[in-house]
């Protein structure tokens, strides 16, 4: 990967003094994941360009698990863009070869350090989630003139469109120190992919490098979040230290699966509303033995346990890991014996017959069916409605009509990348009525969350009884 900085300040070759590298020689140094070379493609009075070429050893990249979790059993580890795209690796390289310049020290040209000079940066392969618009949002507030051209994926297949890489140029009258600091922090922000380092010391770095200019940046939140790779704990810590304000959310990091759904549905807190709706039905039906199929981390289970009159609560999930989290969340290990006897967590699947699920008053199947392939719904139907046959079955699922009202959800996309389908109200109602007819239940349909006159409620619910 390559990064070039050009200046037309006179004498342009002063650039060499600022970066402490001689324009007439080839400088090389070793870093953990390869080599960094510094060369000058041009070095004249009028114009001087210094290029940083990072030669990445892709194998060492996989083998040195630097901070971030590396899944060595994913093929993407071995064929990836890290050797070619200007990402966090470039930041690391810059701090290695231009560390002194970044710190604002120059023995030969001490006065130039704090003097804004015309500088132009060329980043021929910049990975950028958010496209040219984001490059501008990030760099224009800092006074840069931004050029960003998309790079096509493959000229042989024009249908495939553009890649996520931009050919970026930035130019401004700026001190070299600031320019390098901006690049150091903002290249990983543009990339927004796996960084090869994230840890609490990153907060120190961020504050150290960006303390003075980030506070006033309109995108400071996005920059902080992306720089710290979405880790909400770290993000809020950093933000609060920057803003000296502790109102920011300091909740634990969400498991990555639910991030998108929660952030899309978040503002209206649908999760709690769904739980409230289910509790209301369970209370109304006087159900005492309850199944939570696809219980996840046990939010509904916890609320059910607090309900008076409920004798037994059984949570079922296919994921062992999630059940462990549920056990932790419910404090099963330290629960009082009498309470402990009211709750049980089972690993299982809603598409296999399971005698442990027979004999319940009610089953809640909250935001679960849309995670099944359509073809598996038949098996689910037989398992729950023909075999287990609880007296009441409560099913909720997204109402896809409402999706247009979610501002941050692109048209035609699902609320969660793991959803296999999302139904309109009539699609869901059709399916429910057929099931009720085949399995001798009656069903009523309703919505959860404040409704829209045209598109209905964000979540739809069916209550089957027999």
């Amino acid at each position, binding site marked *: *990967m*390559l990064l*070039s900085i050009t200046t037309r300040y006179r004498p342009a070759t002063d650039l060499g003094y600022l970066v402490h590298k001689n324009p*007439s*020689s*080839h400088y090389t140094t070793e870093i953990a994941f390869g080599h960094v*070379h510094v*060369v*000058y*493609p*041009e070095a004249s009075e009028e114009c001087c*360009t210094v*290029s940083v*070429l990072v030669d990445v*050893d*892709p194998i060492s990249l996989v083998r040195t698990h630097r901070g971030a979790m590396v899944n060595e*059993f*994913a*093929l993407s580890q*071995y*064929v*990836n*863009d890290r*050797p*070619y*795209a200007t990402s966090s690796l470039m930041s690391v390289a810059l701090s290695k070869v231009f560390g002194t310049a970044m710190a604002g020290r120059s023995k030969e040209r001490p006065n130039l350090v704090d003097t804004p000079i015309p500088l132009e940066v*060329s980043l*021929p*392969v910049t990975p950028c989630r958010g496209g040219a618009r984001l490059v501008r949002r990030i760099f224009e507030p800092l006074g840069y003139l931004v050029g960003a051209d998309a*790079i*096509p*994926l*493959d000229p*042989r*297949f024009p*249908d*495939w469109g553009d*890649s*996520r*890489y931009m050919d970026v140029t930035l130019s401004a009258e700026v001190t070299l120190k600031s320019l390098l600091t901006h690049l150091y922090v903002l290249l990983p922000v543009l990339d927004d992919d796996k960084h090869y380092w994230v840890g609490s010391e990153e907060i120190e770095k961020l504050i150290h490098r960006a303390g003075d200019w980030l506070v006033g940046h309109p995108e400071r939140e996005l920059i902080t979040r992306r720089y710290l790779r979405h880790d909400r704990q770290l993000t809020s810590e950093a933000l609060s230290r920057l803003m000296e304000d502790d109102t920011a959310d300091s909740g634990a990091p969400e498991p990555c699966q639910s991030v998108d759904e929660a952030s899309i549905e978040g503002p209206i807190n649908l999760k709690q509303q769904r739980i409230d709706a289910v509790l209301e039905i369970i209370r109304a039906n006087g159900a005492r033995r309850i199944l939570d199929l696809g219980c996840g981390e046990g939010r509904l289970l916890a609320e059910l346990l607090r309900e008076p009159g409920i004798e037994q609560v059984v949570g079922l999930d*296919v994921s*062992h890991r999630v059940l462990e989290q549920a056990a932790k969340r419910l404090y099963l290990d330290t629960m009082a014996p009498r309470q402990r006897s009211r709750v049980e967590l089972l*690993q*299982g*699947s*809603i*598409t*296999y*017959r*399971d*005698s442990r699920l027979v004999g319940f008053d009610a089953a809640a199947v909250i935001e679960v069916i849309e995670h*099944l*392939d359509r*073809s*598996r719904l*038949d*098996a689910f139907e*037989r*398992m729950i409605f023909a075999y287990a046959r609880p007296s009441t079955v409560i099913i909720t699922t997204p109402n896809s009509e409402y999706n247009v009202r979610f501002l941050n959800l692109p048209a035609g996309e699902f609320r969660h990348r793991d959803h*296999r389908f999302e139904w309109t109200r009539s699609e869901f109602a059709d399916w429910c009525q057929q099931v009720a007819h085949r399995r001798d239940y009656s069903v009523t349909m309703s919505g959860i969350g404040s409704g829209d006159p045209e598109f209905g409620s964000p979540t739809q619910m069916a209550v089957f009884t027999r």
Partner: protein
Amino acid sequence: MTVLKIPELCVVALVGVSGSGKSTFASRHFLSTEVLSSDFCRALVSDDENDQSVTSAAFDVLSYIANRRLEAGRLTVVDATNVQVEARRSLVGLAKENNVLAVAIVLDVSEEVCAARNAARPDRQFGSHVLRNQHSQLRRSLRGLRREGFHRVYHLKDEGEISSVVIEREPLWNDRRKDHGPFDIIGDVHGCAAELVDLLDVLGYQRDLEGHSFCHPDGRRALFLGDLVDRGPATPEVLRLVMGMVEQGNALCIPGNHEVKLLRALNGKSVNAEHGLAESLEQLAAEPPEFSAQVVSFIDRLVGHFVLDDGRLVVAHAGLPANMHGRASAAVRSFALYGDTTGESDEYGLPVRYPWARDYRGDAIVVYGHTPVTEAVWVNKTICIDTGCVFGGRLSALRYPERELVSVPARRVYYEPIKPLISQQDEVEMREPTDLDIDDVLGKRIVKTRLSGTVTVREENAIAALEVMSRFAIDPRWLIYLPPTMSPTATSDQEGLLEHPRNALAAFREAGVGSVVCEEKHMGSRAIVVALRDPAVGPRRFGIEAPSGGVVYTRTGRPFFADIDLQTAFLAKVRLGIDEAGLWDELESDWVALDCEILPWSAKAEGLLRQQYASVGAAATRAVAAERAALAAAGARGVDVGDLVAQIERRDTSVEGFVAAYGRYCWPVESVDDLRIAPFQILAGEGSVHALRDHPWHLEVLGRLVDTDLTTFRATKALSVDLDDDTSERTVTQWWEELTASGGEGMVVKPIEVAHHGSKGLTQPGIKVRGREYLRIIYGPEYTAEEYLSRLRSRNLGHKRSLALREFSLGIEALERFVGTEPLYRVHECVFGILALESEPVDPRL
């Protein structure tokens, strides 16, 4: 000598006061592991054999062990005083719970002898009142022992008798494991004598001179499943015929509920003469009285169920769950006669039956009658062959061991059924995936395979597979196979190469393989195609509707096509090819499962290609160009950039090779006509697992399929080589180099004989040798640089090879079981195992 006969499987209660010599007796006549001593159990929980305060806990331990033994069919002797009725009641209960008989052996030794023995033992210094109490309890017990539920009671009255005892273990009456048939198992006759004669005739039986009995020239025997009587027009004639055949050794017979009720009626008990009993009684009244007496004695002697043919076959009138096979208890007899009733009544006033067969997981085949069905179908190794003859259906027989169904139509409706017979639709419903129980897949699995013994699936892998299987996989009824993973060849040490044919050939030569086939890899997406001759085959053979005329699924069991119409169109083209090639007739099957690659790779993997391969290609191409320009400019200024230029040039070539390699496998797909299918193996068809046939057969047959439509099908280039031939390596290497020069994926080398067993057991069924350029998309664009290669060569193939063999064995096993019409859970177990093994962490580049 006193001979005590006891059933082979039973609970033996030793009864005798302290010091009567029970332990000595037990050790003389039984294995030490067969004897559970209450003293020992007391010591287990309290470190003191004589601590009476822990008696209850000690009995819990004893009964826990006894239950596990009895479940496993092991005779169990309980060495305790057992002089109190409560103690004996628990033992009889233990026997009943496990459906085995209980036997009591009383050691009645004089008080003096016992006292003297106890006196000699320092740990038995209890007062004389204890012994006296026990003795009087024993006296009081003696008379009532039989009534307490003991099948046999042996009362040994003195030392002499006790020391002369010999114990003989007898098989149960239902134990006919040494009887291997062959049998013709006949369903409920219900007085339909004419149809019975028709059926015996079709089965090849011949009437003997007197006309009442039939025998088979090949020595086959009829096996009647009961309900010979009631409802039909000629109950006496049927009885006479069956009794005659049984008497002459030409038939076996078990009782049905109708016989039992008839017997009660004939014995003068008051019974409700419903459900056709009145007809029987009326017909029997017309016979001479001695005939009824013969009937009474015949029915009286019938044994509730039989276990036959080394335990492979069980017959019972209303079926029998596995834990009751070969057992004896009132519960077993009742189940065999009446089935599993829930106690509820349906809208016709008939008892609601629980579909026990759906839960059946036993190893034995269970053949039964009792419930009239329109068609006999296998459900989990069980089959009901009561096809409702008396209701105007048919009288059916199952030939065993052939498992062929033979039936004759009823001549007319003799009796109107109270409720309609179970329809075909209900039978299909019974085979739906609700058949698959969570217990069939959860936890550690040990699967027996024909090819390589048992394959173990670890619990954590089963958990991963469960998630994939329940959420993404197609309906398990279609999943009759999943392709196994395949190991690459041992790593080559030739310069610039990671894989080379030489190492693969050497591996097979070493395993003792004579000749191999090299088959081109197409770099498509792996697909299993199940094609049906017509959609009706779906419900009939797979138990599932098949609107697409079959199914196409991926290597992890997911639907290959998201769009069902695309699948239908695709299968139509495949079916047309099979039609034209005449394969339905050639394979004698109306369905066929093919192992294929579907091209282009981009059709299925465009997302991956764009996000990963094309992205890396785009980034690399631009980056290298920029680096090159910068270095050129610096060089032009006279800066010494050393070997950096050469390095960048090499990178440029690598990146070009990478971009070229993935580009080969991409072309736009707008309709089904843009897809190509390259079948390379015929997995199975009706009655036959073809997957084990030699590879040249597959290539020849599939070659003819490919020739029918060269735009839909793509031929798999292949080369057969004799490994003993010195030129073989050169020939193969040259062929491989041609295939891979411009980015071709490479080849798979397979032994001609698919399942080859060498000196180290099963040989790898295939080894892949991938092309140098192709491997750029696996190991990264620049992997060919010697500095990288030297590190990549240290790759560990052991785990991959082991997985490949285990998955191969499971795959073949799945096919064998499906072709052998084994129940769904048995097939699913193997397929599930493959998926579970696939979740084991292994280097994805292999």
